[in-house]
C-alpha cells in the first residue's frame, strides 16, 4: 500500500508539474472565454458601421416606404437619369445604388428592381432591402385588389407556447436546447478527458519501457501496483483539472449573473414573474435555464463517470503501452478504443438529443464502453436515479474485469522488447 501511494504521488506530480498541464488547465478556459468576447466584439464592430444606399425611384411607388434601419440609411436621388445616378453613387460615399425603373404595373415590378454595388454587397444590406421592397410591393398588390390592410394587420397572431412539465415547472423552448448543449459539452469533455488522460497513461508506460527503468521499478513493486498507481495518479491529475475548471466556470457564471442581473435562486422568485422578465432578455432566459439544470448531479456524475470510464479505458491504454515499444506501433491497437468512443458520441448527438429517453439512448447509456458519454448527455434531461445507479454498477463491474485482463498483458508486455506483437500473441500472454 505504501508503494502504491508513492507511485500515485509520483505519477500525479509528474503530470501536474508538466508545463502543458498548467497551460491546458489555466489558459484554455481563459482562451475559450476570450475567444467568445473577441468574436462578439468583432461582430459588434461590424454592425456599428452605417451604410448609406442611394435610391433612384422612377416608379414613385416607394415614396415613403423605405425606412432607415440602425445600419442602413436610404438617400433619395431625384431628377437625374440612371447614368448620372450611377456616377454620383459610385464617387460618393455610398454602399450602392438601388434603382427602381419606371413602371405602372405592380405585378412586374418585383422582377425589375436593380442594385448597383461596388465589389460584393453586404448580405445583411441586401436582405434588408429585399425585405422592405417585398413588404411594400405586397401591400401595394393587396391595396390594388381592394383588401383592407388594417384588417390583415389585426388578424396576425403570434403563438408563444408556455411549456410546463407535469410538476408545474415552467420551461422555455430554449431550455431543451440548453439541456442538449450542456449534455453535449459534458459528454464531449468526458470523451476528451478519456482520450487525453488515457493517452498520458499509455505514453508513460511506453516511456518507462524505452527508458528501461521498468525493470528497476518492478524489482521493487508488483507490476499490478505500478499499473494501478499510474492510472490512479493520472486520474487524480484529471480530476484536479476538472475541478479547477468547475471553479473557474462558477466564477464566470457568477460574473455573468451579476452583469445581466438574474437571480439564480429559483425559489426566491415566482416562476411566472421570472418568465415575464425573462421574455425581456434572451440572455436572462438562457442564464435562468442554465441555473435550473441539475448542475450538481451533472458535476457529480461527471466525476463518477470520468473515474469509471477513464479507469476502464486507461487500463486498456496501459496494456497497449506495455505491448509496444514506441508510440507509432500503437495505431493498430487504437481501434478498440476509438470505435466505442465515437459510437457513443454519435449516439449522443443523434439519438439522445432527438429522444433522450428512447430505446437506443437508454440501451447505450447502460453498455459500459459507451455509458459514461451517453448517460452524461441524458442527465440534463432528467434520468431516474436507479437508472444511473445500474449503469454505474455495470461500468465498475466491467472495469474490474478489464483491469484484471489488462494487468496480465501489462505484466508480460513491459519486459518484452523488439517485435511488435499481434493480437494472437497478446492472447498467448494472458496464459504466461
Amino acid at each position: 500500500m505504501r508503494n502504491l501511494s508513492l507511485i500515485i504521488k509520483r505519477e500525479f506530480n509528474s503530470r501536474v508539474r508538466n508545463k502543458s498541464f498548467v497551460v491546458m488547465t489555466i489558459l484554455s478556459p481563459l482562451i475559450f472565454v476570450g475567444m467568445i468576447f473577441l468574436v462578439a466584439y468583432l461582430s459588434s464592430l461590424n454592425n456599428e458601421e452605417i451604410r448609406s444606399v442611394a435610391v433612384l425611384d422612377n416608379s414613385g411607388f416607394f415614396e415613403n416606404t423605405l425606412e432607415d434601419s440602425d445600419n442602413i440609411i436610404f438617400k433619395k436621388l431625384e431628377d437625374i437619369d440612371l447614368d448620372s445616378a450611377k456616377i454620383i453613387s459610385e464617387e460618393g460615399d455610398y454602399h450602392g445604388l438601388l434603382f427602381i425603373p419606371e413602371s405602372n404595373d405592380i405585378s412586374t415590378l418585383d422582377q425589375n428592381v436593380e442594385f448597383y454595388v461596388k465589389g460584393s454587397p453586404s448580405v445583411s444590406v441586401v436582405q434588408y432591402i429585399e425585405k422592405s421592397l417585398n413588404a411594400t410591393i405586397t401591400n401595394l398588390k393587396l391595396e390594388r385588389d381592394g383588401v383592407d390592410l388594417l384588417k390583415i394587420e389585426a388578424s396576425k397572431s403570434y403563438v408563444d407556447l408556455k411549456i410546463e412539465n407535469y410538476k408545474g415547472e415552467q420551461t422555455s423552448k430554449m431550455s431543451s436546447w440548453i439541456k442538449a448543449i450542456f449534455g453535449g459539452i459534458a459528454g464531449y469533455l468526458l470523451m476528451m478527458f478519456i482520450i487525453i488522460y488515457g493517452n498520458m497513461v499509455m505514453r508513460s508506460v511506453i516511456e518507462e519501457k524505452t527508458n528501461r527503468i521498468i525493470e528497476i521499478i518492478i524489482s521493487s513493486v508488483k507490476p499490478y501496483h505500478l499499473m494501478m498507481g499510474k492510472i490512479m495518479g493520472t486520474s487524480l491529475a484529471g480530476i484536479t483539472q476538472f475541478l479547477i475548471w468547475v471553479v473557474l466556470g462558477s466564477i464566470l457564471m457568477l460574473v455573468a449573473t451579476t452583469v445581466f442581473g438574474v437571480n439564480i435562486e429559483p425559489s426566491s422568485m415566482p416562476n411566472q414573474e421570472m418568465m415575464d422578465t425573462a421574455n425581456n432578455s434572451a440572455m436572462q432566459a438562457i442564464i435562468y435555464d442554465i441555473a435550473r439544470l441539475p448542475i450538481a448531479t451533472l458535476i457529480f456524475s461527471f466525476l463518477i463517470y470520468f473515474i469509471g470510464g477513464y479507469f476502464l479505458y486507461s487500463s486498456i491504454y496501459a496494456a497497449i503501452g506495455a505491448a509496444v515499444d514506441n508510440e507509432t506501433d500503437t495505431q493498430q491497437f487504437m481501434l478498440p478504443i476509438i470505435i466505442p468512443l465515437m459510437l457513443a458520441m454519435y449516439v449522443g448527438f443523434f439519438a439522445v438529443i432527438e429522444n433522450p429517453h428512447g430505446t437506443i439512448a437508454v440501451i447505450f447509456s447502460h453498455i459500459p464502453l459507451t455509458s459514461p458519454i451517453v448517460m452524461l448527455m441524458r442527465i440534463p434531461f432528467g434520468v431516474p436515479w436507479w437508472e444511473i445507479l445500474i449503469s454505474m454498477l455495470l461500468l465498475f463491474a466491467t472495469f474490474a474485469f478489464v483491469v484484471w485482463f489488462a494487468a496480465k498483458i501489462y505484466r508480460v508486455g513491459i519486459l518484452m522488447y523488439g517485435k511488435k506483437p499481434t493480437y494472437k500473441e497478446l492472447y498467448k500472454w494472458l496464459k504466461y
Partner: protein
Amino acid sequence: MSNILVADQVTKNYGKFTALNAISIEVPAGSIFGLLGPNGAGKTTFIRIINQITMPDSGKVFLDGEALQPHHIQQIGYLPEERGLYKSMKVGEQTLYLAQLKGLSKAQAKERLKYWFDRLNIGDWWDKKIEELSKGMAQKVQFIVTVLHQPKLLIFDEPFSGFDPVNANLIKDEILELRKQGATIIFSTHRMESVEELCDHIALIHNSNKVLDGKVSDIKRTYKSNTYEVGLICNDKETLKTELSDKFEISTANFKTLEDELKINIKIDQKSSPNELLNFLTSKAEINHFVEVIPSVNDIFIQTVSKK
C-alpha cells in the same frame, strides 16, 4: 559456509519454449558468484525469478532458508542489464523515490544518498535532470540506487558496461568493499576477465540447462590437462621437437619472451610428475620458461558451450 540463495529445480516455460529447465543452484553466503552463459541461455529469466518479477512454473527458491516471499525484495538489490532512469526527473527526487520503493523512510534515504553521493563524487548532481547526465554518470546513480537499501544479496547484470576504465575500477572496488561488509554478490557478465578477477564461484547456464557449477578453483582443477608451457633454448629446434613428440603429446605454444627459444606445450600423463618432465628437459636443453597451463574461465566457457 551456509548458502544465502538456493534454487531447487526451477523451471520456467514461455508457451512451448523452455527458458529454464530444472535449474538448481546454490550461492554461498559472502561469495561473489558468477552466473555465466551465452546470450539467450536463460540467465535473465533466472535473475527475474530471484527478484520475483517472474514466477517459476515449478521449483522453489529459498533466500536465507526461507521460501521467497514479497518482503524479501527489500533484501535484494538488482542492477538489470537493461537499465535506465526517468529522463525528466531530477536525480535527487528520483533516487529518493526509488529508495522509498525499497522500503527506506524518506529521512533514512536522504541520509544514505548523501553519503553515497559524496563517496562517488557526485554530490552536486542532486538537482540535475537525468537527461543532462552522460550514460556513465547515469550508471553511477543506478549503482547507488541498487546498493542503497543495504541488501544482503546484490545482483549485478553486466555492471561495468558503459563505464570508462577509471569508473569501472571505482565500481569494482565498491563491489569488493560491499562483499567485505557481508553482502553476497551474484554477477552476470560476458566479460570473462572480470569473472576471472572477481568470482570465487560460478554457474554456467546453456540452452536453459545448468551445465557447470562450483568453486572456480575446483572447476579449473577438473579442466586442467597436466599440460606445461615450456621455453627451451637449444641449437637444433626441429630435432628436439621430434624427440619430444616421440615421448609426449606436444603442441605449439604462444607466449612472449626476449629470446628466440623453442616454445612448446607438453602434456604428460596423470602418473608422471612435473619434476620428471623437468629432469628430462634439463638433460636436453636450457629451460627459461616452465608454467603449468591452467584453463581460464574463458577457455572453460568456450569449451563447455561449444561441446554441448
